[in-house]
C-alpha cells in the first residue's frame, strides 16, 4: 500500500525542493564566512527532516487533511492568541512562542492553516453560494481573524502572506468579476487609511524609505543600498563562490536569512540568480498543473493556495532585495536560513503532494461547517 503510494508519488516536486534547499545550504555556507557549523549544517539537517515530513504528509490520505483543516485553523488561531499573551519578543516584534524544547512562530503555521480552512470552506460551499453574502463574508472572516492577530505582533510580511493567498483563493473559487471589481475599489480607498492608522511607525518608515531611499542613507535604506551594491557588483557571472566582498565583509546585514539572494547575485551573478528563479518557476508551474488535474475543490484550492503563498514569498523577497519593495522581513523559501519557515514550506509541499496523490479520491461535499 505504502509502497504503491511511494511509487505513484510525484517525485519531481521533492526533487526540485531538495535542489533549491541545497542551493540554500551552499549560500548559507558562503554567507557565514565558510563556517560549516554557523548555519549551513543546521540548514541541511532541517532540509532532510523537512524532506521526511513532506513525504510523510504526502502519504497520508487527503481526507485526513480535509478533516484536519478546521481544527488546524482553530489550533493555529489559539497559538496566535497564545503569542499575544506568552510570546517572546525578538527585535521588538512578538512573534515567537516558547514551547520549552523549541521556539515556534505560530504565524508560519497560520499561513498553511488559512489556506486549508479556505479550501475546506469552498469545498463545502455550493458553487452558486460562492458569490453570495455567506460565501463572501465567511471567506473574509477566515482571512481576517488571523490577520488581526498577526498585525498586533506586528508583522506586516506575514499579514500580506495571509491576505494575498486568501484573496487568490476567493478569485479561483469563482467569485464574480463584479464583486472583485467592487472589492478592488474599496481596497484602493482603504489602503491609504490603513497606511496612516494601521501601521506601526517603523513599518511606515520602511515604506517611506522604500519610496525615497535618500531619506535616510545610513539607517533603514542602508540595507537596500548595500543589497543593491552586492547584486549590481556581481554583474553577469558573479565574483565567484566565497569571493563576494559585500557578503564576506558583512556589508549586507541578514545575508544568511532574508537577504541571502544578495549572496547568490554577488557570487554567481545574474546567471546564478536567474537559474534559481527558473527553478522556482518550474516548481510552481508543476504545482499549477497538478492543481488543474485534481477533481476535488479542496485539493485544487489547497494546491493553489500553497503555491500562491510560496510564490508570494519569492516575489516579495526578491522585490525587497532588489529594491522594488520595502523591507518587510520575508525570507526566500527553502534558501534562507530559518527553521519554522523551512518546516512550514515542506509541510505545504507535503499537502500538495498528498492532494495530487489522492486526486481521484471522491471527497463528499457539504458535510462540514465552519462551526
Amino acid at each position, binding site marked *: 500500500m505504502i509502497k504503491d503510494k511511494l511509487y505513484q508519488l510525484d517525485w519531481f516536486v521533492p526533487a526540485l525542493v531538495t535542489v533549491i534547499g541545497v542551493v540554500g545550504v551552499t549560500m548559507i555556507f558562503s554567507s557565514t564566512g565558510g563556517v560549516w557549523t554557523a548555519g549551513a549544517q543546521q540548514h541541511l539537517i532541517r532540509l532532510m527532516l523537512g524532506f521526511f515530513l513532506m513525504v510523510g504528509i504526502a502519504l497520508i490520505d487527503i481526507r485526513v487533511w480535509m478533516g484536519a483543516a478546521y481544527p488546524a485553523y482553530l489550533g493555529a488561531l489559539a497559538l496566535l492568541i497564545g503569542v499575544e499573551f506568552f510570546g517572546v519578543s525578538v527585535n521588538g516584534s512578538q512573534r515567537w512562542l516558547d514551547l520549552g524544547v523549541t521556539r515556534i512562530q505560530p504565524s508560519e503555521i497560520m499561513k498553511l492553516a488559512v489556506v486549508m480552512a479556505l479550501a475546506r470552506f469552498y469545498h463545502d460551499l455550493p*458553487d*452558486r453560494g460562492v458569490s453570495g453574502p455567506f460565501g463572501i463574508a465567511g471567506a473574509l472572516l477566515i482571512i481576517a481573524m488571523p490577520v488581526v492577530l498577526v498585525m498586533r505582533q506586528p508583522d506586516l510580511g506575514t499579514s500580506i502572506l495571509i491576505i494575498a493567498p486568501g484573496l*487568490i483563493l476567493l*478569485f*479561483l*473559487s*469563482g467569485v464574480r468579476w463584479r464583486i472583485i471589481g467592487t472589492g478592488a475599489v474599496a481596497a484602493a480607498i482603504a489602503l491609504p487609511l490603513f497606511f496612516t492608522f494601521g501601521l506601526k511607525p517603523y513599518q511606515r518608515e520602511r515604506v517611506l524609505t522604500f519610496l525615497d531611499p535618500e531619506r535616510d542613507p545610513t539607517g533603514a535604506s542602508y540595507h537596500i543600498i*548595500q543589497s*543593491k*551594491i*552586492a*547584486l*549590481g*557588483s*556581481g*554583474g*553577469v557571472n558573479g565574483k565567484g563562490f566565497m569571493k563576494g*566582498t*559585500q557578503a564576506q*565583509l*558583512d*556589508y549586507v*546585514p541578514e545575508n544568511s536569512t532574508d537577504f541571502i539572494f544578495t549572496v547568490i*547575485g554577488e557570487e554567481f*551573478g*545574474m546567471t546564478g*540568480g*536567474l537559474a534559481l*528563479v527558473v527553478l*522556482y*518557476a518550474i516548481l*510552481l*508551474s508543476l504545482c*499549477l498543473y497538478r*492543481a*488543474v488535474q485534481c477533481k476535488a*475543490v479542496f485539493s*485544487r484550492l489547497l494546491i*493553489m493556495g500553497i503555491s*500562491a503563498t510560496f*510564490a508570494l514569498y519569492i*516575489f516579495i523577497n*526578491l*522585490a525587497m532585495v*532588489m529594491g*522594488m519593495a520595502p523591507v518587510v522581513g520575508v525570507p526566500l523559501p527553502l534558501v534562507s536560513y530559518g527553521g519554522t519557515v523551512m518546516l512550514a514550506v515542506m509541510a505545504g509541499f507535503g499537502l500538495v503532494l498528498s492532494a495530487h496523490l489522492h486526486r481521484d479520491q471522491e471527497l463528499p461535499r457539504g458535510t462540514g461547517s465552519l462551526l
Partner: protein
Amino acid sequence: MSADNDNVQTFARRTILLGIGGGAVFCGLAARMYHLQVRQAEDYRTLSENNRFNFRTVVPPRGRILDRNGVQLAGNRQDFRVVLIPERIDDLDATLLRISKHVPISPETDARIRKDISRNRKFTPVLIADHLSWEAFSAINLDLPDLPGVLPLSGETRDYPKDGTFSHIVGYVGTPSRRDIEKDKDSLLRQPTFQIGKTGVEQSADARLRGSAGRLKVEVNALGRVVREWPEAEDRARSGENVYLTLDSDLQAYAAEQFEDDSGGAALMDVQTGELRALLSMPLYDANKFVSGISQADLDKLYKDPKKPEYNKVLGGTYPPASTFKMVVAMAGLEAGVINPAEQIRCTGHTELGNRRFHCWKRRGHGPIDLHNSIKQSCDIYFYEVAQRIGMEKINDMGARMGLGQVHPLGIAGQSRGILPDNAWKQRRLGESWRTGDTFNASIGQGFVLATPLQLCVMAARIANGQKAVQPHLVIGDAVPDFEMMDINVGHLDLIRDAMYAVCEVPGGTAYRPGGMGIPKAQMAGKTGTGQVRGISAAERASGVIKNRDLPWKYRDHSLFVGYAPYQAPRFAASCIVEHGESGAGRAATIVRAMLGRALQSDGFDEAAAKNLLADL
C-alpha cells in the same frame, strides 16, 4: 453537474490567468536583475570597491633637530605603551587591577579607559598607559599570559635630551588643537597619536620636520575592521627632514651653567654671518613634560615660579638696556656733530633740569670727563648732556640702525619688538607729551627704552662688524639676505670701540678683569649696564641708596652686558641680562666673558692667535 463543470472551467481559466500573472512577475524580477547586474553593474562595482577598500595613513617619522655640529637637540625615542582590546577582555576590572601592579592607574585614568572603551568599536585598541619605563614594560610583557587582550606596544615619541637647555628655542610638540586641525588640512593631524610643533623651531619648521603621510591600502569589513593589508603602499610616507640649527649645544650648556640659579637671557652670534651660536633663556624647563601631557601640578609649579621658566626671555623679554644704550647715544651725538671727542663735560654727580635733579651712578661725580672715559666709566651726566643737545629723534634713529626697536624674525613666536620711545609713542601709550626729562632717562637706557637680549646682541655685533647691518639667523640652510651697509663713520665707531675695549681691558674700566676670557692675551670689548627696576626717592638718596643685597630679589637691579671678541678682529658678539643680578660689571659681564671665551676656543682661537693679533696692532 453543469454548474460543477462551469466551476471547473472557471477554475482552470483563472488558474491560467494566475499562471500568466505569476510569469509576468517573474519576468519583471528578471528585468530588474538585468537592470542592476548588467546595465548598472559598473556603478555598483565601483561602490563595492569603495566599500571594500580603505586607505590607512602611514605616519612618517618626524625629522630631528640638531645643532651645528650634529648634536641632537630634538629626536625620537622609543616609547612603550600598553593598550587593551576590549573584545578580547574577559574581566576588565581584574585586568586593570593586575596591570596596576606594574603601572599605577589613577582613578582619572580608569575613568578615561572605560569611556574610551564605551565610545569605540570593540576591536579598537584603547590606551592604558604610555611613556612606560623599560622595567614596567618588561614586567607587563612577562605577565602577558595572565592578561588576555592586553597588548604591549612600542612606538616613537619626541624626546628632548638636553635637560631643557634648548626648550625655549627648539620648543616642543603636542597634540593638534581643534584650531590646528581646521587650519591645516593634512590628514596626519587627524591621526590619533600624531603631534605637531607647538612652539619654537618645532613650530616654525614644522612643515619640514613633519614629512608627508603615506597611504596604505587596506581591505575593511562593514564594521571598519581591517581584514587585510595590501602589500605595496600606494604612497610611501616621506620622513621629515632633519633641521640643523646654527646653535652650539656645548656653548649653550656652558652658558646655562654660568647662570646658575639666576633668571635672564643671553645670546651669542657671529658678527659676520649673523649665525646665532647661543640663544639661552633662564631658568630652564623640561620640554619633555609637555610632550607627554604635563600634569596640572607641574604646570602650576611652572607658572607660579617668580623666575618664569616658561617665558622666553632672550627673544620676548624686554628690559631697560641701561648703560649699554650709551653707545647708541654717543654715536648719534658724533654723527650729528654736536660733540667733540676731546670735549670734557663736568660731572658733579648730578645735574638739574628745571626743578628736577638727575643723578650719576657715582654720587660724588666723575669731574671733567670726555667721551672715551664717559663710556669706560659709564658716566651718566655726560650722556644727559649729549641727549639734550641732539634730542630723542636722532637717538632713536641710531638705535634702529643698531637693531633695536624691531623684530629680527627667527620664525619663533613670541619675539618682542622692544621700544624706542618718542613723542608719538608716549602720546599713544600714556596720553602725555614727551618731555626733556624722558630724553634724559632714555639717554642712559632707562625710562621708556626697552630691548631684548637678542637685540642687544645684534647691536654689539653691528658695532663689532662696523660696516654691515648684521641680522641674526638660527636655521642652517635658511636663505640669508645680503646685509645692508650701515653707513656709519668708521672714525666714530673706532672711538666707541676703543672705549668699549677700555671698559674690559684697561684698569678703571667698569668690567676690567685681569685674565679676561680665559685665553691668555685674548682681548675683548664691551659695555656694562645696570638696569634700575625701582624708583629711588630723594629721601632715600639723601639717607643713602639702599644696597641691592638689602633689597628683596625682585627689586634688585638687572645686570646687563654686551660685548665682542677678539677686540682686534671681531668674531663673536654676545649679550646677557641677568634679572635682578645687580651691577652689570658683575654677573652679566662674567657670563658674556665666559661665553665669548668658550666660543673662541671652540673656534680654534688660542694664545698664539691672540698674540698674532696683538702684534698686528
